[in-house]
Structures are given as C-alpha cells and as structure tokens.
C-alpha cells in the first residue's frame, strides 16, 4: 500500500493556494464526506480535539489541544487483536481522518513519531492509522504562556514536513500542501481557491514574524543538553527534581513524543465455552517503577531519581542521538499537566539558573 507520509519538500516546490475564510466551512464539509473530521472545540474554555458535528463550532484561535493529537495515531487504549475459537482477528483501525486545526508543534511531533514507529520493524497499528490520517495544521497565532517551540524550529510555522498548513491572513488563509496526497486532496476543491498574489506573500511574511514575536521566553534545550553531557548536572539536582514527582505519568501521557506502551490480555466470555481473549495496548510511562519491573518483583528503577532522570535524558540526549531531534517540540503540555512543576521547561530553566553561570 502507498503511504501518505509527509515528504519533506523544498520551499520553492511548495504548492500554495488562497482560501477565502467564508469558504472554509464549505471546504471542510466537503472533506467530511470522505473523512472523519476531527478538530479542536472549546468546552468550558478547555480545548478538546474530537469528532466535529457542527463545523462552525471549531475553535480556530486557540492554543494547543489537551491531550495532543498523538491519541489519534496511538490511542491511550487500543485493542490490538482478539483470539476466539475461530482464530485471531486483527483489530487495526483504518478509519480515514482529517485532523484539522492542529498546531505546527504537533505536526513536528508526528514527523518524529513517524521516524520512531515506522523505522526498523514498523509498528502496524501506528502505520495503519497514520496512513489514513491527514493533518491540516494552522500556523500558530495564539501561543500559550507555556509554549517554547519558536526556539526549537518545531513551530510556530513549518517550512517542511506538514501535510497541509494554513496561514491566517485576516480574511483568508494561505494554504500550503506539503505532500503529493495533500496536493491531490486540495486539488479536488480547486474551484474554491486561487493562486497567491504578492500581497498574500507579504501578509504571510508578516504573519510569520508576528507569531514568532509572540513568544515570551526561549528555553534552550541545546544548552541543557550540553550542561548534561559536560557532566555539570549533579545527581543532587535530579534528586531535588525527583522529590517533587507525584508519579502520575501525566508528563508521558501528555507528551506528543512519548511512545511507550504496555500490553494486556483480557478474557471475555462471549458465550458458554466460548472464550474471547482481547489483547490491547495502553499508554505506559517510564515514570512508574513497575515499568522495568522483573519477574519475581525485582525493581531495577525503584529509586525515583532514576526514572525522572531517564525521562529527561531520553528527550535531551538519546532522542537526538537516535532520531536526530530533541524528544520535545516545546508544546508546553507537560508544564500544564505536571502537578510537581518539574516539566521540561521548568527543569531546563532551573538547570540554566544553577549551572550555566560559571
């Protein structure tokens, strides 16, 4: 089967169109005929990403959703297969989805997830969902106080690696297709669009500049990486961090780049003497001591510091080594969720305060 993976393409080759804002809902309604349409909604001011029934309710100027769109490619709980008397059946999800209105940082995350899940032995569940999902991202114009993508190049807009990217130019969108499939999809509704003019590009430039300017603080993951590899960061520092961990797993669950899972078998009685076993996978987290637990009860990472440190090392050191980019897009979700305030931004910040001078 052909994959619908974002292919990095050169800027000059980007196919661009302009879509009048008045036509957005018409376009989405058309897309919904072939795809399940997922988009952010405001619920009591929470931004939730879910299937959209009423297109006009989509929240267009909002910060990133909670949790990240990762759950559409790698759900928190996903049935994998069942085994009954008639053998094994595969429960892979292959629904066609358009995820509209996600942020650039989340698209960057998906690119890295692709690298992880599809390299080596590809993960079939992820692959099947990914092949059938198209992301239409919005260049970020309302960064949250917790966001720091701008310093990382994972946002607020992307040069490559998106499916379809929209720039908000006031009364219209500049629409960029980043893959052949995306181009074809947009092409189907060409009649709604026009070619961009010079003014459109000028406005695009302004949109880029102004969205970049909206970021208050830049967190330097590279600086943190260097401090760690230079051996500056003592275990005392990690111990202090670890003391504050509630072991909730939230950082891992929320992070668009955390990929770990566990597998469980559950027996269901479909009828007398007809036992169905369902094997499912669910989000797991290296923050739990049982994550690396061995048969017989040995817990190699029982000390909390080992787990806390692991999470940061994975994102700051191992990720760049194995996948070529930080395991963090600066989305700020861990900052929002961590009850102990030992999220990526806070810890890197604190590390800087403690070690960067001298």
């Amino acid at each position, binding site marked *: 089967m052909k994959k619908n993976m974002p292919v990095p393409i050169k800027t000059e080759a980007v196919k661009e169109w302009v879509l009048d804002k008045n036509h957005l809902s018409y376009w989405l309604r058309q897309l919904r005929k072939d795809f399940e349409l997922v988009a952010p909604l405001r619920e009591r001011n929470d931004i939730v990403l879910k299937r959209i029934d009423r297109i006009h309710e989509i929240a267009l100027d909002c910060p990133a959703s909670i949790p990240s769109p990762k759950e559409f490619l790698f759900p928190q709980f996903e049935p994998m297969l069942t085994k009954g008397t008639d053998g094994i059946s595969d429960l892979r999800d292959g629904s066609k989805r358009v995820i509209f209105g996600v942020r650039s940082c989340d698209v960057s995350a998906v690119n890295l997830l692709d690298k992880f899940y599809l390299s080596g032995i590809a993960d079939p569940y992820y692959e099947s969902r990914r092949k059938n999902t198209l992301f239409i991202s919005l260049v970020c114009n309302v960064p949250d106080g917790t966001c720091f993508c701008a310093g990382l190049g994972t946002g607020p807009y992307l040069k490559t690696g998106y499916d379809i990217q929209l720039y908000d130019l006031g009364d219209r969108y500049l629409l960029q297709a980043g893959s052949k499939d995306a181009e074809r999809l947009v092409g189907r509704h060409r009649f709604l669009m026009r070619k961009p003019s010079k003014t459109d590009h000028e406005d695009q430039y302004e949109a880029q500049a102004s969205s970049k300017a909206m970021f208050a603080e830049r967190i330097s993951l590279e600086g943190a990486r260097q401090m760690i590899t230079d051996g500056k960061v003592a275990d005392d520092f990690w111990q202090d961090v670890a003391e504050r961990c509630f072991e909730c797993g*939230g950082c891992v669950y929320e992070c668009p780049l955390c990929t770990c899972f566990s597998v469980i078998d559950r027996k269901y009685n479909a009828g007398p003497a007809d036992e169905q076993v369902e094997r499912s996978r669910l989000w797991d987290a290296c923050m739990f001591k049982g994550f690396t637990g061995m048969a017989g009860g040995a817990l190699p990472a029982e000390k909390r510091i080992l787990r806390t440190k692991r999470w940061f090392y994975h994102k700051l050191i191992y990720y760049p080594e194995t996948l070529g980019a930080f395991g963090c897009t600066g989305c700020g979700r861990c900052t929002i969720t961590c009850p102990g305030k030992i999220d990526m931004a806070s810890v890197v910040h604190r590390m800087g305060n403690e070690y960067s001078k001298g």
Partner: protein
Amino acid sequence: MEKFLTVCPYCGCGCGLYLHTEGGRITGVSPSRNHPVNTGSLCVKGWNSYEFIQHPDRLKYPMIRERGALRRATWKEALRKVAGELSRIKDSRGPDAIGVLSSAKCTNEENYLMMKFARAAIGTNNIDHCARLCHSSSVGGLSAAFGSGAMTNSITEIKDARVLFVIGSNTTEQHPMIGMHMLDAVDRGASLIVADPRKIPLAGFARIHLRHRCGTDVALLLSIMNVIVAEGLVDVEFVRRRTENFDAFSSLLEEYRPDTGERITGVKADDIKKAARLYASEKRSMFFYSMGITQHVTGVDNVKACADLVMLAGHIGLPMTGLNPLRGQNNVQGACDMGALPDYYSGYQAVKNPASRRKFEKAWRKRLPDRPGLTLMEMLHDGVRAMFVMGENPALSDPDTTHVRERLERLDFLAVQDIFLTETSEYADVVLPAASFAEKDGTFTNTERRVQLIRKAVEPPQEARPDWQIICNLSGLMGAKMHYRGTYEIMEEIALLTPHYGGTLHHRLDEGFGLQWPCPDISHTGTPYLHRKKFARGLGSFTSVGYMPPAELPDGDFPFLLTTGRISFQYHTGTMTRRTHIIEREEPVCLMEINPEDAKRLGIAERQGVRVKSRRGEITVTAAITERTPEGTVFLPFHYREAAANILTNPALDPAAKIPEFKVCAVAIEKAG
C-alpha cells in the same frame, strides 16, 4: 472520537476529566485544563480510570444464590426476590430489622433515593454509609463547634495561603491534586507545618514536621493552643465577637504546657512553640486534616481541638483560612449531604426534629419513623436481620473483618448492588449489577462542597443498570412508587427539600464546573468559603476536652503500634485499582512499612514475609524497611484482600461518632516461616 466531561470516580478532590470514546468503548482519559481543582493535571488513578470500566469482571446480569452458588437471573426475578424478602422481614420483624448501606461512590441523586427508599419504602432510619468510617467525627465535632461539618474553604484558595497546617493527611498521595496546590503555595513562599507520625512526602517540603505519637493529636493541638494563649497570639477580637465558651476552655489549656505536650506526644516543646507562632502569626493560615484525625476513638475530640485552634487564631470565615477536612471518597460529602445517615435527612435536617420530619412526610406522602437508626458499625455488629448494600464493601473495609464476615454470614437476607463481585457479595443472596460512573448521569459533591455533573459516556455492560433506576424499580415493588424521567428530576426534588442544594439544578451545573453549596436558589452562584461573618450555629463554640489515650496501645504481647491507611497507587478495597494494569503492577503486594531499627532487632530483611498478629487475627505481609515509619510503629495499607489489614484493626468506637479506631491498634510481628 467523542469526549465527555465528567468527574473522577476516585478521591474527594473531584477532578474534572474527559472520557474519550470510540465505537462505544472508552479509549482514554484527559484532564480538564480549566477545572478549578485539577487545572490540567490528574493523578495516576485518574489517568488510568478508564480501564476498570470495561474490565471483563464487571457484573453484567443479576444473580441469585441457590444451593450456595450464585446463578444468573433475570431482573424481574432478582428484583422480586429482593423486594419479597425485604417485605417479608419487614412484616415479620418490623422495618428496623433491615439495614441499608448507601454509597459514597454513587451519585447524590442515588444517595437521596436510597435514603428515601429506606425511610419511605422500608420505613427505617437504619441507613448509613462509609462516611461513618472516615469523617463521622468531623460531622459530629464540627457541628458542635461551628454548626456545619464540611470543608470551610476552597481548593483554589490554597495556593495563595501563607501558612498551611496539615495534620493527619498524607495529602500528596491521598488527595494528590490538593497536594499539588499545597506545593504551589510553598513555591510561592508559604510555610508548611506538617504534623504526622510518618515521614510522608509532604514533610519533605515542610518548615516544621511534628512527628507526634499516633493517637496523641489532642495533646499536640492543646499544647499548641497553650502557647498561642501564653504568648498573646490569640485573635482576641475574633474570640470576643464570634465565639463562646472561651473561659472554660482556657482553663483546660493550662494543663497542656509545651513540656506536657512533649511528654505525651514526643514532639520537642520547642517545635510545638514554633508551630504555634508560625500558625498564629500569619493571617492567611489554612488548616487541613484527614483520616489521621478522625479515625480514632477520640475522633470527635480531635476534630474539636482542631476547630478550637482555628478559632483561637481567628483563622476562619475568610478566604485562605479555615478548617478543611479532606474527604476521602469522590462523593462522601454528597452522600452525607443527601442524608444517607441514620439521624439526618438531606441537608442535615435532623430526624429528631419534628418540623423536618413533617416536611419530608408531606413531600413523600408517607409516615416516617422518628427514632434515629443504627449506624454502620451497629448494623454490622448486632441489630439487623437483613441488609441492602449498595456499592460498599464492608467485608474488607471495616475493622475486625473476621467478625463482620460472621455477621454477614448470619444475616437472613443480604442483597448487594455493585459493579464488581466484591468480598461482601460472597455473602449475598442476590447480587444486582450496577452502572459505573461512566455509564450514567448525576452529580458528585467533592470535598470543597462543589456539586458537579457526571455524564454518561458509554452504555453499561449488558444488563447492568444505573443504581437510581434499580432503587426506583425496587421501591415500586415495595409499594412506594418512584418515578423520575432522569436524574435531573431527582435533583429537582432534592433542591426542593434541601436548602443547601436549592440552586444546584443540572442545567446550571452544566454551564461550568459545578457550584459550591450552600447554593440556596437558582440565582445563587455558590459559596467558596463558609462561616463568613457568622457561624452556621451562630457563635462558634470552644468544645475541646482533655487528651485520652487510644483504646489499645502496645504492650508486652503486642509490642508494636499498627496504623493503617492508603497508598497512592491503590484505592480502598481495590475493586477498581486492582483491576487496572498499570496501578496493580506498581503495588501488587501488601507491604508493611517498618523502621530499620525495628527490622534489625527482629532480624527482618527487606521484602521478607512477616506475620502480623493482633488480638483479633493475623495476616501475612511483606516487609518494606523504611525511615518513613517511626520506631515502634508499623504501617499497613488496607487495600489487599489476601492480606486484609482490617482483620487486625480494633473495632473500638468513638462514643459519639461511632467511628472505629483504624489508626491505632497493638500488634505483634514475627518472621513468616
């Protein structure tokens, strides 16, 4: 993918979370970012609360016991059997031969219906629930002192407090999201005082950690108050204008000088003084307590001492002050509010008060019994011949379970309504399958009195039904027709009869994240803190009494003091958490915390099996050697059926609140073979 905003089914924090569904199944959970309690966070139990809902062990159809074994039955059969048996016993032995246990896990609407069912359909006040085991002493103690027994302030206020005094509450582990706000306050410069015999995680952030001996809380608090008086830190104006009984109380205080306090509690007199000064000298001082205060034979005394301390310093009736009991179960506050208590109707309207009784008689068009009923412990230890238990598991949660099980065994009839087959249902004649929180609508009231909507996200498994529908069915069969088109109609009735809940109608709750009672009418926006300007009872009353030791202390035969509680990964009797993969993997075995010195003396090695014996029974557990627990004391969680701590605990009761002393009993420890 659909998402439904609802409320976490675990602790009293009442966190807002979304349940995600795909194809009629729950595929995940996420926190609500704008919810005032959890502000985008969840604890590990909340994050994994999706899993037990669709566990294959869920009860899917009614069952009736026949020749010793439970067999599948139809709803009609099962309901008839329950109604028939209850009616038979009611006719032959009178309604008071029946006891009803309602549930702090069920909604307000269901608790309301349950108490209506007990009182109007059966005709007994024998209704109670597990609040008896956690906060009945708060209700008793605070009613005497203030006239109302709930958390006075709001969770959102915590982060702005200047001093936090936390006693008998392992907050970061048991009320994690409240613990989060406490850490936040500390980060913003607040001083934290922790009083706890164990080195709980919160103690690591405390300015002062008072490690008093288990069960000496009254002495500790009185000696703190002694210092406040001695050093002139009393809020004189507050005491004069808003309280009474100060004189009698102040003469009691004279006996508890800091050195006396030190002798009884083991806490240095100096630390007692420091704590007193710190707490009294800041204006924005919040006081918190939980089961470490309430679960004693002196539970009510403990609570009264807390109340007196707060009044003495004038730290109540304002934002960021107050006396804040942290409630354990997701809806234990609501179950109490709804009158699932033997002596109160909803809204704490006393059964003994003829005016209240007439009000409910008129509304329900039934004659109601006028004598307060039996409490949970009394029902289980004598009293009744038949029981109807909804969503509770006394066979594991109550002290001296061996005795409780004998009693359950001897009942003429026992019906259990639950989502799983619990230890209690092993004794049931009929088992009714109920819907979980994800499969029904209704409201929960969290520890800060926030009445919140829960929303149905998926269908119940097979034939299971929402508890409220089951109660309606049964009530109808017993001659008291109940008919509601939905839970919102039940809430309308509650609002009509319950002044605190006058304005908490579902459509209003739907608009935001609920309303905090008192909310007397439909224009009222809720009450973030209580006792403003005036206490519920008028003047606050100083009610402290002197220190009394626990009912059972270590001696030659049973040289260790056992204290029990929860651990952060498991929850209560484990019916939900032990069916959650990630959580069960974290803490699969019952670990007994023991101090390294004690372990050395007994020759116990880490993770070795040990036998723990009390006068009531013995269990085998695994030793975890840790400084957390002081010398001479051991700690056990009560979640594990294979090592049920409550086989050991002492059923000695607080004389007023009838709460058992879970927190102190004497045990002997030896290596298991």
